[in-house]
């Protein structure tokens, strides 16, 4: 379960003024649910996700991941959350297997658990054929799957995925989204951000639209994306209705 409660994040700009990147955002994601966090570039999606991942600390408000508060129990959050950043940084010289093993060791998993999780993830993510190839020689889709595997290595109940399909072509994006369906069916709580609405309108159970750091609309898939293309219309209606485009 992911519960976001009146989350606020202010940054000090270069000119000394305060910028509210996230301004009182509240929403929740239940187990076995995929929620799409939608917004244009600069809307506050990445900052919200980094707050949930404990990479940033909130100015006000809080959030709980699997019952662990991001302010008072960040270590608990890190143990129960898998986070995929928008920038796919995987070490060029390591192979997918080594990346997953490294992530497992960082999580303090023992040797047997690392071997087990690595084998499972290489299979689930379709990386067995390239498990010994350095990541620098993989396609962007394969690299993104390695990155997703790194987020899943400790078998977290909740996932926060920041624009996971960003660098992927149509096939890569479809494969990755299919994987998310599998993870949801396995009971995981998934929050996924994107500005590529057409890709996820049939995948998410609910949507949260964020604009200028605020939630301007939220609703179920049936309410916001009942027919093809309707999510885009709902998105623009919400954003324009809030005073921006």
């Amino acid at each position, binding site marked *: 379960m992911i519960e976001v409660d009146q989350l606020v994040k202010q940054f000090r700009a270069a000119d000394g003024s305060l910028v509210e990147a996230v301004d009182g955002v509240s929403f929740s994601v239940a187990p076995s649910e995929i929620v799409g966090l939608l917004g244009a570039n600069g809307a506050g999606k990445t900052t919200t996700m980094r707050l949930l991942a*404990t990479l*940033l600390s909130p100015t006000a408000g809080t959030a709980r991941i699997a019952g662990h508060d991001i302010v008072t129990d960040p270590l608990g959050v890190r143990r129960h959350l898998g986070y995929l950043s928008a920038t796919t*940084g995987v070490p060029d*010289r390591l192979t997918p297997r080594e990346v997953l093993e*490294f992530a497992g060791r*960082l*999580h*303090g998993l023992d040797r047997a658990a690392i071997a087990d999780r690595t084998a499972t993830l290489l299979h689930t993510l379709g990386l067995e054929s390239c498990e010994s190839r350095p990541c620098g020689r993989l396609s962007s889709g394969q690299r993104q799957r390695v990155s997703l595997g790194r987020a899943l290595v400790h078998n977290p109940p909740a996932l926060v995925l920041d624009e996971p399909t960003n660098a992927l072509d149509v096939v890569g994006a479809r494969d990755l989204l299919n994987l998310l369906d599998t993870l949801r069916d396995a009971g995981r709580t998934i929050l996924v951000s994107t500005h590529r609405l057409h890709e996820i309108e049939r995948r998410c159970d609910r949507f949260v639209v964020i604009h200028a750091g605020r939630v301007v609309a939220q609703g179920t898939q049936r309410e916001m994306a009942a027919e093809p293309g309707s999510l885009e219309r709902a998105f623009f209606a919400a954003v324009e209705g809030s005073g921006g485009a």
Partner: protein
Amino acid sequence: MNALRGIIAVAGFQIRRLLAPQRIALALVGAAFPAAVILAVRRVADLNLDVLALLLYALVPEAVCMLGLLVTMCPVVADELERGTWQHVAVRPGGRRSLLLGTFLAAVAWSSLVALLALALALAAAGLPDSGPLAPMFAVLVLVSCVGRAALFSLPAVIVPKRALVASVAVAFVVEYLAGFLPAVINQLTVSLRLRSLLVRWMGWERKLPPELSLIIDTQPPWVQIVAVVALASVFLFAASIILAGRQFPPAEES
């Protein structure tokens, strides 16, 4: 136990990165530098044990160690930010601490190995028959220098990661070579005072030093100097770990 696994994993990862052909070539050039200087000195002057010790001190625990640590310890956070891997380390429990301490271990191991190779080559180049006792003495100086200064450089690395190299060079000059030579309490907090004091003590130079120069060494026994460096390194690493734990990088700061 879990924390140790993370630290060892990062140390192994960083050492693997250092084993790239370009890095190894650079290290070999650095290791050969003191020997080249000593060969050049031998062409114009006769070397004796005291002159050799002074040359070795300036070239190995000072120059080679310092340069090795500047290229291995300083980019600890900046590299991760640049490669987009920072978030993946930082979202692990203890990930930031593992990154810092694992990189510290790798930097100490790598820089010590390069400096010890430099020491061996320099002693061979000197060709003095009675220089044998210098080897273990300088090996200890190399380890003390690497441990103390790697920990010192961890501070600029976490405070100003994007300019860690420049900040570390400034710290080296201001702390180690300016404050370190001030005959005041401040020099007690420097690694250079401890290294100099060990050198003077082990070379038996205390009585040969003019009174003015005795102000810039510490007359405590060697074990006190070594414990002081370990204590300083622990304080630096603890402070760096606290700073890194609270460090925030807004999305815009990562490119």
